């Protein structure tokens, strides 16, 4: 680890083949507020990329663009080298992108198994699209067993679960459905140690299978260092640092974040003076 390396700008991708996902010059404003000011980011095949940054740096906005929830103002998104444009979550999903959001996309009033299949419901033949409840229950039970997620019953409504269990279900849903790219927006927020461990292992398993490329946003650097191959730092709507995990350290990242925080603080103070 080359601790103490100078924080630099984004480094050119060290390409071995085509990137799973490439973001070029993406901007996004909400009214007068420019949240993304030109994002360049590369996610290589089978890679786990960590994204860190202050609150309001634009990480969640970027994730919502990549998952088709928002659309960018400018810039391009390429998957496997092909330009794509998403106009809905469904279209992003059709390209194999699955997302776990910070705000937990579970439906409190629906049972676990229906939450697990939400948006991918198994249906029987016919115009009514009758749900294949039996099959969904069975697969849900099997799958949750496989990944060691324990719930009282797959028929329990999500509102009866603990926060950690619900998060585990949300992550499990995306992991199960992801065919190409998985986006995790603070998957460990508000989770206990045991449940965090579970999610970290789940993502590591998926990563080691090599079938999906993953972007993780988290504030816990220890988890990120364990999970990720590479880390990008986002500040003020731009990527300000791009490092292999093997070429950076907790200290470097922490120092970078603290110094930027200090800079902001000084700006605020000098503005106030």
């Amino acid at each position, binding site marked *: 680890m080359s601790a103490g390396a100078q924080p630099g700008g984004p480094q050119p991708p060290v390409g071995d083949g085509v990137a799973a996902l490439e973001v070029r010059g993406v901007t996004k404003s909400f009214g007068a507020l420019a949240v993304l000011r030109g994002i360049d980011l590369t996610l290589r095949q089978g890679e786990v990329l960590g994204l860190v940054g202050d609150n309001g740096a634009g990480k969640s906005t970027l994730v919502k663009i990549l998952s088709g929830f928002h659309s960018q103002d400018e810039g391009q998104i390429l998957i496997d080298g092909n330009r794509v444009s998403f106009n809905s979550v469904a279209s992003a999903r059709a390209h194999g992108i699955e997302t776990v959001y910070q705000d937990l996309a579970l439906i409190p009033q629906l049972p676990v198994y229906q939450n697990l299949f939400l948006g*991918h419901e198994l249906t029987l033949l016919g115009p009514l699209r009758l749900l294949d409840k039996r099959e969904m229950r069975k697969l849900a039970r099997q799958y949750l067993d496989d990944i060691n997620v324990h719930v009282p019953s797959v028929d329990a409504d999500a509102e009866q679960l603990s926060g950690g269990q619900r998060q585990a279900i949300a992550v499990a849903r995306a992991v199960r459905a992801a065919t190409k790219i998985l986006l995790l927006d603070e998957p460990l927020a508000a989770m206990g140690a045991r449940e965090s461990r579970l999610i970290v292992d789940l993502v590591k398993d998926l990563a080691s299978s090599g079938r999906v490329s993953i972007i993780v946003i988290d504030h816990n650097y220890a988890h990120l260092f364990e999970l990720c191959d590479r880390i990008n730092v986002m500040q003020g709507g731009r990527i300000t640092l791009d490092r292999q995990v093997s070429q950076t350290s907790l200290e470097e990242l922490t120092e970078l974040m603290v110094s930027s925080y200090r800079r902001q603080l000084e700006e605020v103070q000098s503005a106030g003076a």
Partner: protein
Amino acid sequence: MLRLFLYQRELTPSLITVALFLYFTVRAGSNFTDSLSLSSCAGYAGPVAGIAVGEVLLLVLAEIDLSAGQVFLFCPWVMYWLNGTVPLGVAIVLALLASAGVGAINGLITVRLNVPSFVTTLATNFILYGAVLVGSNEVEGSPIPLSGKTGFISSVMGVGTWAEIIWVVVIAIILAVVFTRTRFGVRIIATGGNLVGAAEAGVPIRRVKVWAFVVCSFLSGLVGIVDAIKYGTLDPGNFGVNYILYAVGACVIGGTALTGGRGTVIGAFIGAILIGILEGGLTVIGVSTNDFFIYIGVVIILAMALNAQFDRLVARSRSR
């Protein structure tokens, strides 16, 4: 035991309905249980139930359709106006399409223009009321085709004593299956239970909402036609809000939360039956219909309070 009541919200109104039925049977005996009295209960419950089972879809979506009662009245007028110009069967189909179209407009205005559905449907309610007044020249609509006639089709379409309530029962059963066993049903609950979450999970929330408006309007129109054939005349001054308020009341009694995500078709149906039995029963035991309004108000408040308590208990069981 408590869990059963917590998670089967239809249970409480069902038991109250049965209790009311027994109470009136004991009080009035065969005066209540004869077919004349029961058919008048069914007559009160039919329109309310027909509108409520569609309305509940919207309430579960945390939306509302205030125009469904007016669609119930408007649809038979369309049939009445078109009949003769086109064959009756075509007139009925066109009237139903017009009803569904009102639902589509309600839905599209709500989701595309971001107008709260309370406002959208309040407006379409007035527009439809005006359309009936203008189109009819304030002249009563009569005779209604099929009405007052004998024969199989007439009796099925509303002339038969029990025709309307049977229509409503069949509609309720089909809709209950749609609500609990199809992708559309799950997506209604998902959209109403967590709008952002459902959208993020890939549920097409706007399309789900528009279709729910279409279904609600279509069914209100359908039951409206049956009701018009049953009674034989159309009163242009009849105001749909009367019906819709009963229907929303029925949904609430049946365990629907207006905040979305919670409610069932069966619950709404049972709520309507409860209202029908209460109104019919009070009439039979000689309580004036004026008192009925006080009772119905009390029942609605009690039902809502009970549901709020149930929600709190569910929340508490989660936080353990």
